[in-house]
C-alpha cells in the first residue's frame, strides 16, 4: 500500500544523521501544529505545549526552533537573526541546524526569506504577505514579574484585569518622568490579551500592528506558544498624557548613514571613541550597496 512508497521517500530524504526532517518527530510536530492553530485563533493567548528538549540550552531559542521545525517545509527559505544580525553565533548555529536537519535553503536577505526566526528584533525591511516571523521568547507572561502565580495570571488574562500593568508603567512616570520601559514593552492584541512581544526594543512595537506577515512566538523553557495573525490590531500600552513613543538617535549609522533604523552603539577604543551602526545587518548592507552604486554612477 502506501508504506512501501513512504519508506522509499524517507530513505532518500532523511539526513545522514538519521533524524527526521527538521529534527522533531512527527508526533511532536502534530502536537505543536495543533497548538499553533489554537494560538492563531485566539491572538495573544499563550497556548501551553509539550516543549521538547532541543540539542542546545534553554535561552538559545529552543522555543523558536520548535516552532520553525514544525512549520518549515522543503520549499521554504529560512533567515535567522539575532538582535538584527545574521552573522552572530546564535543566528549562525540555528541557520546551520536547519540547513543540516531539513536541507532547506537559507538566506540573509529579508526579502528572499519565507520564514524568519528572530531573537529580539523585527527586520527594518517591511515584511510582506506570506512571510512568517518566528520569535524566540524567554518569558512569555507579561504579568509574571508582577504576579508569580500561574493560576492568578491566567485569571487576570481571563478577566482582562490589566490594571497592575498600567500601575507598573505609571511607577516609571512617577520616578523618571516618562515610561522607562524600553524593551519587551507590553502590547494589547486585538483589544483583549496583553502580550509580551519578547524582548524586542519598543522601537519595533509599531511594526507588529497590522503587519501583513504572520507572527508566531515560541517559549521553550516556559513551554508556551502564541501568535498574531496578519492585519491584527496591536497597541502598545500607554496613557493619554504619556502616549507611547519609540526611541530615536541624534547619530546616524556609521556605515550606511541611516537616520531611521535602530542603532547599536559600538565602543571602538579605550578613549571614549564610539560609533553607531544599524542593528539590522541585512538592511545596512542593502543600503550600503545601493549607496555605493549611486556614488559610482
Amino acid at each position: 500500500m502506501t508504506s512501501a512508497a513512504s519508506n522509499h521517500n524517507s530513505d532518500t530524504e532523511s539526513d545522514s544523521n538519521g533524524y527526521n526532517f527538521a529534527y522533531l518527530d512527527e508526533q511532536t510536530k502534530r502536537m505543536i501544529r495543533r497548538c499553533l492553530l489554537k494560538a492563531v485563533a485566539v491572538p495573544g493567548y499563550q497556548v501551553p505545549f509539550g516543549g521538547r528538549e532541543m540539542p542546545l540550552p534553554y535561552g538559545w531559542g529552543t522555543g523558536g526552533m520548535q516552532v520553525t521545525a514544525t512549520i518549515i517545509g522543503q520549499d521554504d527559505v529560512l533567515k535567522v537573526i539575532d538582535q538584527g544580525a545574521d552573522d552572530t553565533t546564535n543566528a549562525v548555529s540555528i541557520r546551520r541546524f536547519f540547513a543540516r536537519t531539513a536541507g532547506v535553503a537559507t538566506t540573509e536577505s529579508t526579502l528572499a526569506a519565507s520564514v524568519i526566526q528572530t531573537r529580539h528584533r523585527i527586520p527594518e525591511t517591511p515584511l510582506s504577505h506570506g512571510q512568517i516571523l518566528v520569535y524566540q521568547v524567554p518569558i512569555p507572561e507579561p504579568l509574571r514579574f508582577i504576579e508569580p502565580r500561574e493560576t492568578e495570571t491566567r485569571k487576570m488574562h481571563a478577566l482582562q484585569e490589566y490594571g497592575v500593568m498600567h500601575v507598573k508603567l505609571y511607577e516609571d512616570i512617577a520616578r523618571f518622568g516618562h515610561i522607562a520601559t524600553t524593551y519587551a514593552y507590553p502590547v494589547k492584541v486585538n483589544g483583549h490579551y496583553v502580550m509580551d512581544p519578547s524582548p524586542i526594543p519598543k522601537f519595533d512595537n509599531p511594526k507588529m500592528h497590522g503587519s501583513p506577515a504572520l507572527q508566531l512566538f515560541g517559549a521553550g523553557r516556559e513551554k508556551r506558544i502564541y501568535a498574531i495573525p496578519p492585519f491584527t490590531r496591536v497597541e502598545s500600552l500607554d496613557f493619554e498624557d504619556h502616549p507611547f513613543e519609540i526611541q530615536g538617535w541624534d547619530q546616524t549609522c556609521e556605515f550606511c548613514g541611516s537616520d531611521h533604523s535602530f542603532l547599536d552603539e559600538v565602543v571602538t577604543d579605550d578613549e571614549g571613541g564610539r560609533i553607531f551602526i544599524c542593528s539590522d545587518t541585512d538592511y545596512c548592507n542593502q543600503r550600503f550597496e545601493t549607496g555605493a552604486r549611486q556614488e559610482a554612477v
Partner: protein
Amino acid sequence: MTATNETHLFAMQALSTTFSPALSPATSTAFSLAGLCAGFDDPVHQSQQVFRRALTALSEPGTVQNVPESPAPEGAHSASYQLCLTLLDAETPLWIAPALRTDALVSALRFHCGCRLVDEPGQAEFALISPDFDGDLTHFAQGSHEYPDRSTTVIVQVESLDAASTWTLRGPGIDGIRKVGIAGLDPRWPGMLADNCRQFPCGVDLMFTAGTALMGLPRTTRVEI
C-alpha cells in the same frame, strides 16, 4: 517517520496473518485492508504542506486554500480527510456526525491516525460534521476563560466555498473586510457564528471544506450578512 512506517507494515502483516481468509473466514471482511483508503504517500512532507494551508486558512479567515488532490474515503471531502491525517493522532478524540460516520472513513482514520472516536461532541478535540448536523455549535467543547485553547476544532463539509458572496467578514487576519460565499449552509449558521464570536475568548474554530478547498473561520471572525 521510518518508525511509523515500520509500525504500519508490522500492523498490516499481523492483521493479514491473523485474519487471513483461510484462518477465520467470518472476520476476513470486517478486518480486511483491501478496501482501506490510503493515507499520505509521504506523511512528513504532505502533512507539512497541508498544515501550512490550514495555518494560512485560520490566520487569514475567508481565504480559500487548496490542498493537493488525493483519495479520500467515501463521504469525506479530500480536504477534510487530509486535515485529519495531518492533525489527528492517539491524543485527539474525534467526533464524527452520524451522517458522515461511514465504515470507510472510520476504519481509515482508526488505521492511519489511531484516534479515539467519542460519542459526545463535547469531549472531542476535533469534530467532522455536515452543515445540517443536529444541534448547534455550543454542543462542542468551548474552552474556558482560563484555557480557551481547550475547545473543539470543527471541520464542516459544505457544497462549495466559491459561491456568490453573501457574507462579509471582519477581524484579525483580514485587512478591512473580506467577502465570502459558502454554499450549503442552512439559515441557522449566521446566528450560530455570531454567538460563537460573542463568547470570545471561548468558542470553537471552524474549517470549512469542499473537495480539496479549505477555508478557516476562527472564533475571532465577525460575520455580517
